[in-house]
């Protein structure tokens, strides 16, 4: 196990040319996960090459814009890899405006959907994607939809329920005698 941890750290450091520290955690069920932060966006490509060299797979990519990150003036993206059953997550801070990240699609084909998805939902540009066409949204809609638009469900905010319940409470004829 120690060999495995060292091997992963060494390979990642070697490929990225930067000191890579991975925090390994083991949960109550004995499942090990690795957590690591990369200094800059460009490092994800050599890091992913290192994972591919270790016969790892890409599980998924998560772009997110948390309130705490926003306050710091950054956004985050996390790449989740699988190394023979152990999940390794590489997180990167990106700028709020003009974020750019190299595409992993040439390395891992399943990166295609994730990259196309976060390109349309967030203001993140993917460099070197072989076919950066829309995944869900119509071409007439500008990208970064999550950052510009309010979901209709949030917008309506239970207004229908509120209106119906007001009528129910007014007419249920039982505005009770206990209160009088």
């Amino acid at each position, binding site marked *: 196990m120690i060999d495995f941890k060292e091997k992963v750290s060494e390979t990642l450091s070697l490929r990225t040319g930067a000191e890579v520290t991975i925090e390994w955690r083991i949960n109550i069920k004995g499942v090990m996960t690795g957590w690591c932060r990369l200094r800059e966006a460009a490092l994800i490509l050599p890091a992913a090459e290192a994972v591919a060299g270790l016969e790892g797979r890409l599980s998924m990519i998560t772009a997110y814009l948390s309130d705490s990150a926003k306050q710091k003036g950054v956004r985050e993206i996390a790449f989740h890899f699988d190394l023979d059953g152990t999940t390794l997550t590489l997180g990167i801070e990106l700028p709020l405006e003009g974020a750019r990240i190299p595409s992993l699609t040439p390395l891992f084909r399943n990166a295609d959907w994730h990259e196309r998805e976060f390109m349309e939902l967030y203001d993140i540009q993917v460099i070197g994607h072989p076919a950066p066409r829309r995944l869900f949204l119509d071409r007439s809609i500008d990208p970064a939809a999550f950052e510009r638009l309010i979901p209709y469900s949030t917008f309506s905010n239970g207004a229908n*329920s509120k209106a119906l319940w007001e009528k*129910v409470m007014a007419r249920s004829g039982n505005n009770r005698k206990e209160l009088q």
Partner: protein
Amino acid sequence: METRPVINPIPPVRLYRINAGSCNGCDVELAATAAVASFDVERLGCCYSESPAEADIVLITGPLTLRVKDKVLRLHGEVPKPKVTVAVGVCPISGGVFRDSYAVAGPADDYLPVDVNVPGCPPHPRAILAGIAKAAALWRELSGCGQTLPEPAVPGSYDEDAAAPLGLRGKMRFNAAACVGCRMCEHVCAGGAIRIDELGPGLRFTLWHNSCVFCGLCSHYCPTKALTVTDQWQLSHFQEDKFSLTEQGFIPFVACTGCGHIMLPATPELLRVSYRKTNPEIERLKTLCPECRQKQSLGGIRR
């Protein structure tokens, strides 16, 4: 050649069915009213029509989704007046579990006049028949076709006295005396049919049957079984009763005998669930608020 005299040719009341984005649950029950002899609408002197222009009564299922709204309104408009509209299932009545979705335009009565509601998710075929019977009577009154309904072929096929099938989940019943005000029912309610309001002297429980989907989750999770599922399937009603079809109860707060703070009463059902049976010590402690109980416990039991 012998010819039989035509007996009592009362023209049937024609029903037209519109699916306004339904999950098809109610439509399957409607199919039972066309295909299963004991639930057949013909017993009520009704028949299904394939053309809105030839219909008298409109049956609407589904929450009226945005996608079908205009088509539904067009079809409904094609039914000649006087027409009677029946909302079948909680979806067209209140939106049911789909209420507040961005894809739902309903409730149906925001866009078209509804006369009769048959709540349920789905309603039992007999509840649908009872609703159609109400609608047919109303239509005959409006249209001046004063004939009374034929007696159902099998007595009790849609009346309220008929025995419910075993295990049928019908309307919920609330027993305020057993409620501990934990609000779990409000939390788990799939249809958003329950709300509990805190008023000065206590908690007010309200369950709106027109949003209840008979799932029974509230009863399942109720620790003291203050909510129980009954087999009462007959909930069809005229539109004027739509918002008053509720089950209400009031749980008055009591004052702690130690400090006078108001608190929810510890009901006998709660004590039974917690301790199986009670004793004088429990009876005394139940009148105290948690803080006073804690103080008593720290001070040791005084016997």
